[in-house]
């Protein structure tokens, strides 16, 4: 019995770590949705770009000194963030601005093609071979009462929580946060309030690129080998973002963690005791998602749109 419990506990902890990865990606989706109602299909690719850029900086700063030091990691991290800012800004220019007055769907399609372009471009620049990413945490492990967690996972959980708190505060407590929401609802009226709509759009794309880069940097070592297919993780984080409620910051982390825990437990204890679950452990999250949406069509934390006739 205790064995079952510790097993479940261990899986929950691993699930939370996995869930925080989904949460980070979902947070990226959420930011853009909140201000523009656009679902960014290239979110996973932004993350992949972040991971590659960070790898590039680490190797550049390293220049044959063997194992990188903390200083090098920090330097590379900082440079990657600066890159993310520039990258987000460029994306706003190439995607969002030309399509500002076009239907949301054009923008969504543009993000789909962007994802194709980014995967190809990174592949061409970095070459087809996968890379062995660096990690400042190595394979270090923490163990508390028989429950183990890697330091890397801990850092992921930690960053997810910090980022969620930051953005939650930003969106609910600051003028700019509310302005972003207003912009997504009616950009024309927002302009009439003096809200600099273009800057708002630019800002969310930059935020989203930063979040993506941070998650890419943290995630790459966990993926063991870095290649462009990392971008497809974006699709895996979709159900998490939707479960929490598109456009809800708390929803992003809640959805992510729920999905992560369900995934690990269903692949672990559940399938250990029920053989047939093995056959379908990848669809359990989808079944849960559909079931939840049937009851709460706007996700756990999403709110139904008001419409008065």
């Amino acid at each position, binding site marked *: 019995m205790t*064995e079952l419990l510790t*097993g479940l506990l*261990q*899986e929950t902890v*691993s*699930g939370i770590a*996995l869930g925080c990865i989904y949460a980070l990606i979902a947070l990226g989706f959420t930011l853009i949705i909140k201000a523009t109602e656009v679902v960014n299909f290239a979110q996973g690719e932004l993350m992949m770009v972040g991971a590659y850029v960070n790898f590039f900086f680490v190797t550049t700063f390293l220049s044959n000194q063997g194992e990188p030091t903390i200083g090098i990691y920090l330097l590379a991290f900082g440079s990657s963030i600066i890159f993310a800012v520039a990258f987000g800004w460029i994306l706003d220019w190439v995607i969002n601005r030309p399509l500002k007055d076009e239907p949301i769907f054009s923008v969504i399609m543009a993000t789909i093609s962007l994802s194709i372009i980014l*995967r*190809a471009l990174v*592949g061409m620049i970095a*070459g*087809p*071979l*996968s890379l*062995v990413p660096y990690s400042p945490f190595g*394979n270090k*492990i923490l*163990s508390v009462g028989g429950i*183990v967690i*890697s330091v890397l996972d801990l850092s992921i959980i930690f960053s997810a929580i910090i980022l969620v708190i930051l953005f939650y505060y930003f969106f609910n407590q600051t003028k700019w946060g509310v302005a972003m929401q207003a912009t997504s609802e009616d950009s024309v009226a927002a302009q009439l309030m003096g809200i600099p709509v273009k800057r708002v759009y630019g800002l969310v794309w930059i935020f989203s690129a930063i979040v993506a880069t941070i998650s890419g940097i943290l995630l790459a070592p*966990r*993926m*063991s*080998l870095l*290649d*462009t*297919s990392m971008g*497809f*993780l974006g699709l*895996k984080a979709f159900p998490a973002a939707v479960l929490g409620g598109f456009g809800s910051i708390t929803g992003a982390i809640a959805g992510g963690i729920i999905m992560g825990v369900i*995934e*690990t*437990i*269903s*692949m*672990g*204890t559940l*399938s*250990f005791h029920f053989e047939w679950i*093995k*056959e379908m*452990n*990848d669809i359990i999250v989808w079944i849960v998602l559909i079931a939840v949406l049937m009851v709460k069509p706007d996700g756990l934390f999403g709110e139904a749109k008001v419409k008065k006739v």
Partner: protein
Amino acid sequence: SSPGITEDTILIGNIQDLSGPMKELGALLPSGSNLYFDYVNENGGVHGRQIKMIVEDHSYNPQKAVAAAKKLIEKDQVFCLYHVIGTSPCEALRPILAESGVPLIAPATQSGSMSDMSRQAADLIFHTDTGYDKQTRILVDNILSKNANAKIGIIYQDDDYGENVLKGTAIAEEKAGISVQREAYQRGATDFAGQVANLMKGGVTDVIIAGIVKEPIIVMKTAVAMGYAPNFYGTSPTMDHRISLAAGSAGEGFTSVNFASLWNSDAPSALLYNELCEKAGIPAKMKGMYHFYGFITAQVLVEGLERTGKFPTRTRLVNALETFKNWDGGAFPPITYNQNDHAGTESVILVQVTDGVQNVISDWIE
């Protein structure tokens, strides 16, 4: 003469995954093949004809593979297809092969179904590698021979690859009267905490990982993190030496099956390979088992073309390949083809990682 054959060239078609999940192999395999073709071409070609290979992309989508094959056959008029990667893309080509009579040499998949002679177009497909089912069977036998009380577990990719592996597992189970613990994962999975925990719970001492490159690394790292230390084994796609590089200390002792000699061994092909790599300036990071795999299958194809003679036709190529009898190319174990058997090699060697280096630890096992 036959399509794809001119005065001075033989045109062959290759369909790889250049933009999908396996695009790394899409870069390595053709490069390895071209290394050998260039060598042959420099030395006068095959009966005076230069070999030219066109590579198309299918991004691991069977439908695209069919389109690519149609293009190669109808538009580019290739003589034969060679080294198409992936089980379902290869399977999807059967109708076209049957319709057009174009042979497919050395499909780059170790699925046992490729050499099933009852299937459509089987007479046109010449498989080289030992199938997954056999590999798994051999692995299980080997584990049991070392430790009769071993509790075996297997982590498999839940698709056609895994299905092939499970086929072998079932046979081995029946033979040895044991039961193997099965853990599935989905293509593209990046987290194996659940599966590893289950293996641990099941008291498994020997784990076979039927993954590709990333999965064994993550599984072994996860196991280390959970304080779980069984013996790890892998099927042939895990024979790449970068697994041990990326897994670091977690990958120590990892044993994989190989259907050909190691690329850095002193097998004749390997020696030639390293020499040619040197000459062509192939970067060190490309060299490895996958690159070498492209090289040695090219040897099989060239031998077949040689035997086809001065006036090649597709039928003649098929007939020529069926004359292979214990042919030793220098890396593969001896290959025999005849009308009822297009399976190619049937045996494997085991390779173990010690101190981060792959070492052969067995003879050819049938």
